[in-house]
């Protein structure tokens, strides 16, 4: 049941947001890879109160057949919200919003993948929103990209995503639910970190050209940071799964071998400070 009210301000006189963040600060993000045993690849993300699971199945036989692509795999993303993930119970049937988001998520992920390796098949990406608190499509992309990597789908890079918005006239990174609802605009975006090309861009609300460009710049910075978190999560999952005797990683995850650098296009990016 929803008993929320519009907050008095989105940016406090001290310049802080309703959850105490600075305008360019992300919510705490927890990524976990390999959470579902039955899936070929899986990952979960907690971003603030948003909680999402993603599973990848495939490449596998495609039904219905008429969707078959002869030169590459069909990437099918299905974004679904649990009925209890939002303040008022969501109707169980897929909404128009869920269908649109499924499509833009597939478009955001596809440019990073070498789908031509698997013609006439499907790669299914199933996304289940368990708790929605703003920024679900971007969080979904962050998790889905990791699930694709976990499934071993060849890719040029992971795809990070984040939303930039505007509240009380100020640009803010990674909108929470209230900021999305009562703010003045929302720009969800996703990038390919190795080329800095944009694979998802949507906008609502009112932005001037200068504001929009600044917002996208802010989103880029956010995406680059999330990309580092994604790589960390992936390495952690595989260090944990390494067979016994392959190293001392078992206990000390801080010191796993960093041999995935080349695959992840990490060498192009500045190192994160510890």
């Amino acid at each position, binding site marked *: *049941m929803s*008993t929320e009210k519009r907050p008095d301000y989105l940016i406090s006189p001290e310049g802080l947001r309703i959850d105490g963040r600075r305008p360019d600060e992300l919510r705490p993000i927890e990524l976990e890879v390999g959470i*579902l*045993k*039955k*899936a070929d690849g899986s990952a979960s993300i907690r971003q603030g*109160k948003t*909680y999402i*699971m*993603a*599973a990848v*199945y495939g490449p*596998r036989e495609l*039904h219905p057949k008429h969707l078959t692509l002869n030169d590459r795999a069909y990437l099918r993303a*299905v974004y*679904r919200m*649990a*009925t*209890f*993930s*939002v*303040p*008022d*119970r969501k109707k*169980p*049937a897929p909404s128009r919003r869920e269908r649109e988001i499924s499509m833009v998520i597939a478009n955001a992920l596809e440019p990073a993948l070498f789908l031509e390796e698997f013609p006439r098949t499907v790669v*299914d990406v*199933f*996304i*289940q929103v*368990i*708790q*929605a*608190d703003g920024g679900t499509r971007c969080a979904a992309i962050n998790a889905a990209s990791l699930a694709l990597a976990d499934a071993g789908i060849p890719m040029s890079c992971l795809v990070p995503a984040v939303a930039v918005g505007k509240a009380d006239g100020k640009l803010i990174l990674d909108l929470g639910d209230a900021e999305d609802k009562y703010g003045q605009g929302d720009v969800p975006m996703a990038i390919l970190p190795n080329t800095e090309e944009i694979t998802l861009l949507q906008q609502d609300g009112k932005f001037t050209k200068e504001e929009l460009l600044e917002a996208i710049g802010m989103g880029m910075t956010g995406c680059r940071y999330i990309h580092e978190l994604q790589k960390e999560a992936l390495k952690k999952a595989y260090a944990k799964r390494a067979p016994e005797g392959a190293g001392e990683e078992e206990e000390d995850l801080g010191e796993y071998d960093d041999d995935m650098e080349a695959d992840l296009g990490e060498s192009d990016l500045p190192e994160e400070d510890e």
Partner: protein
Amino acid sequence: MGDFSAEVISHIDRAYIRGLLDKGQRTDGRAFDEYREIEIQTGVVPAKAEGSAIARIGDTRVIAGVKVVPGEPYSDTPDEGVVMITAEMAPIASPLFETGPPQEDAIELARVVDRGVRESEMIDIKKLIISEGKKVYMVFCDLYTLEYDGNLIDASAIAAAASLLDTKFPEVKVEDGELIPTKNMLRIPLQNLPVECTFSKIGKHLVLDPVLKEEMVQDCRLTIAVDEQDNFTAMQKGGGAGPMSLAMMEQAMDLALEKSKMIREAVRKSVKV
């Protein structure tokens, strides 16, 4: 959960599972009347759902979320609240599940869990009234399969029960025809705690808590819901057309009476007060 006997399973697997049973063993080393490890976590969707729980039996995992919404009562029961349980066998959980509207197996799952809750009168629906004949609380308990390795019904029933026990929702009252929140938090009025136990019949054997491969070779499945007073409140024979003898059903009833106590205890323990 549904009838997966038509799914591909190799003759070797089929013969192996049945052969082992003849020797008194199961593929995962369990006794015939033994559950896999059961784990229950409540309050997993704290910010948006009024109640929630994840139940795990072995590698089968189900999440349940409860929403409580004020609404209008059905015209034939003006003095009763509404309780509804739905289930989705989401494709995230298994390569065997597909997208699209719920198929008959997901509908059966929801209805079998619903019957366990409804027939045991677990929820005192007469206490879900805001204003008789006009406004009542509608309790929606929605189940999503997260991982599927057999015995979805028991895992779903556990998740549903734990999420209902976990539920706290804001009280509302009617003032001048409008709903006003009173700032009180209410619990769902519970008066019973049903538990469901599911068996597979494979050849002449009866096994409790089947894994997916056992469901694939089963002749049929039998689910029995048991309430706190050791009454049977719901039964369902499904998962294949194979017949079952009365003697075997009696054996299942005895086992359900015994095993339901352990599960009920686990559900109670999972709820933070």
